[in-house]
């Protein structure tokens, strides 16, 4: 097990390294360097720029030096938590994003939990009562859930809530709770706002999970050990829950690994539509204003979180399935 984890950790570090390269490439993509745009924006507002400050920044980011040197200066800052300066907000990037990244993480985590909570009972039901009305409903609902784009679903929810309840949906907190400390009323307020984005985010993944769980379980239910369990006189719920469901869950755990990138992608769009204080809207804004260090940091962090999430799901899978722990891959 230890060997497995250390192998995966190594692979994860390599992936993170590659991710950081991609993020830095995106920072470098727009024409001109960020200091030129920074100075242009300062000049536009009529502020005086101390040439010494500019010279310091130029040295700090290694502008004008070869690509690898610049990358090295950037990444060595990132490792200690210095993501550079946002020239639009004139503040360090980390100060701006840590709260928002936290919100993103919270939302995505809750969406994963919601996916499992919904998909598990429905998937089991659909497999056990194969070709029943409920099974068909689950299949149809699943297909629609997969086909409906996240942002379109969010728009429809917002429209319906406006028409039926006269409320505009959006944000994660009511105005009074934004900066308050966590307390019961604040959690309640959060949940009353967050259910909608969570619902939107979880729909596609839930549909996928139900489909996989149903297929896995159908395979398992035909096996002789199920018949044996029944013949032994075990109550039906025990027959199903104790063995086949446990086996059918294994592939599901690994599913989380590749659902995660889609989930992070989705949360960016949904947050923009529903105006949530997560990393999504900030990423979009920083990209349109070419605030590249901010954008690069967000892309880097979102990708790294995805990679870490995938790695956790891999380790979980190895924990529950010895075949993966011991067998080759």
């Amino acid at each position, binding site marked *: 097990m230890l060997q497995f984890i250390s192998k995966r950790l190594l692979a994860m570090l390599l*992936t993170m390294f*590659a*991710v950081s390269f*991609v*993020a830095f490439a*995106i920072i470098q*993509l*727009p*024409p001109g360097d960020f200091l030129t745009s920074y100075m242009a924006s300062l000049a536009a507002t009529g502020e005086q720029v101390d040439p010494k400050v500019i010279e310091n920044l130029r040295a700090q980011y290694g502008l004008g030096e070869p690509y690898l040197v610049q990358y090295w200066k950037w990444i060595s800052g990132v490792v200690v938590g210095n993501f550079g300066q946002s020239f639009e907000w004139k503040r360090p990037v980390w100060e701006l994003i840590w709260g928002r990244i936290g919100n993103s993480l919270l939302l995505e985590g809750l969406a994963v939990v919601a996916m499992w909570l919904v998909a598990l009972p429905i998937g089991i039901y659909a497999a056990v009562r194969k070709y029943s009305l409920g099974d068909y409903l689950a299949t149809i609902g699943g*297909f*629609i859930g*997969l*086909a*409906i*784009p*996240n*942002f*379109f679903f969010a*728009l*429809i929810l*917002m*429209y319906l809530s*406006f*028409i039926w309840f006269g409320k*505009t*949906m*959006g944000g994660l907190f009511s105005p009074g709770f934004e900066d308050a400390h966590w307390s019961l009323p604040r959690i309640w307020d959060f949940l009353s706002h967050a259910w909608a984005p969570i619902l939107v985010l979880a729909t596609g993944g839930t549909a996928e999970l139900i489909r996989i769980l149903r297929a896995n379980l159908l395979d398992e239910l035909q096996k002789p050990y199920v018949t044996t369990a029944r013949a032994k006189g075990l109550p039906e719920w025990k027959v199903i829950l104790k063995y086949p469901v446990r086996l059918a869950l294994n592939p599901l755990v690994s599913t989380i690994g*590749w659902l*995660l*990138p*889609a989930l*992070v*992608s*989705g949360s*960016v*769009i949904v947050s*923009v*539509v529903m105006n949530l204080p997560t990393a999504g809207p900030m*990423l*979009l804004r920083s*990209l*349109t204003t*070419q605030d590249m260090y901010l*954008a*690069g940091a*967000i*892309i880097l962090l*979102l*990708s790294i979180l*995805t*990679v870490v999430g*995938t790695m956790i799901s891999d380790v979980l899978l190895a924990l529950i399935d010895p075949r993966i722990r011991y067998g080759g891959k």
Partner: protein
Amino acid sequence: MALDTLDQMATRPKARAVRESQLGLMWRRFKRHKLALVSLWIVTGFYLVALLAEFIAPLDPSAYNPRYTYAPPQGIHFVSTDADGRWNFGPYVYGYKTEIDPVALRRTFVIDEETKIPVQLFVESKPYMLAGVIPMSVKLFGVTEPRAPLYVLGADRLGRDLLSRLIHGTRISLSIGLAGVTLSLFFGIIIGGFSGYYGGWFDSAVMRVIEFIRSMPTIPLWLGLAAAMPKDWSALQTYFAITLILSLIGWTELARVVRGRFLSLRTEDFVTAAQLDGASDWRIITRHMVPSFMSHIIAAATLAVPGMILAETALSFLGLGLQAPIVSWGTLLQDAQNIRTLATAPWLLVPGICVVIVILSLNFFGDGLRDAADPHGR
């Protein structure tokens, strides 16, 4: 008794050896999948609309009319009763009258059931080029009365006809799906083919790269790349740049499919036989291997189209994909981003319904193709 049956057996004509082409077999199997068949018709319909956009769209998609901002959908009616209570058949739309909204104190349009504007098929129009090549001056339908409004699906902020815009957007959105998949297929077949046929270090390197790309969240990546597009690029340049950006990630899935097929076929007897016959690698690949899995590749490519369409829609919706003068489903939905706008003009959501229908149909169609690709299986 027994002799009789023997006699019958002897006189019964021998079963003829029936041969059917691979395509015929696939089609027969595909037809069994009813949902896929229906989806095929829907998809074909949408692509026909995309092809004939100028002919079907009643108005110019960019023709604005400030007199009819946010005019509600008229729909098309077919049966009317005249003053004597007799029934008349023939398509028509209702006109509009304006009312002042007592709360918002703003002019709104309501359908006026008093005025009826007849709709005719094949009306004369200003000359135009169908798909940019065939000169024509007839539209599928329209109104002949001068200055009469025709907003079957309603109008947008500038009084442009949503239906016409939707039809022209269909052309862009559907073609970008095809173009993106074609490009992905090109990369996918070359890279996946190399890696599957030759294996070795190249194969493992390619697989690591694919795994890496697939572990990244796509939207932030696409956004980052799309934001780097120069703002002064022409519509055509943006279109191709977006296609390229989408296929940068899209090729991975197709390369994986191609590689898998190559790997499983590489050890087949007929390939070994061809190798022993001294056939060149190129000949083995193009004459022996590719034909035997082409249908699988086509099915996989079909299943990749909806993802491309969704991605373009999402990017354009966020404002970093195709830009304003180009009409696509994504740019159309961008108008619906604001909840206030949505409350006054919910019909702006119609492009989203088109997205859902097309994605669903393409998925079912692709599933059917995948099953049919192996007509002897199961």
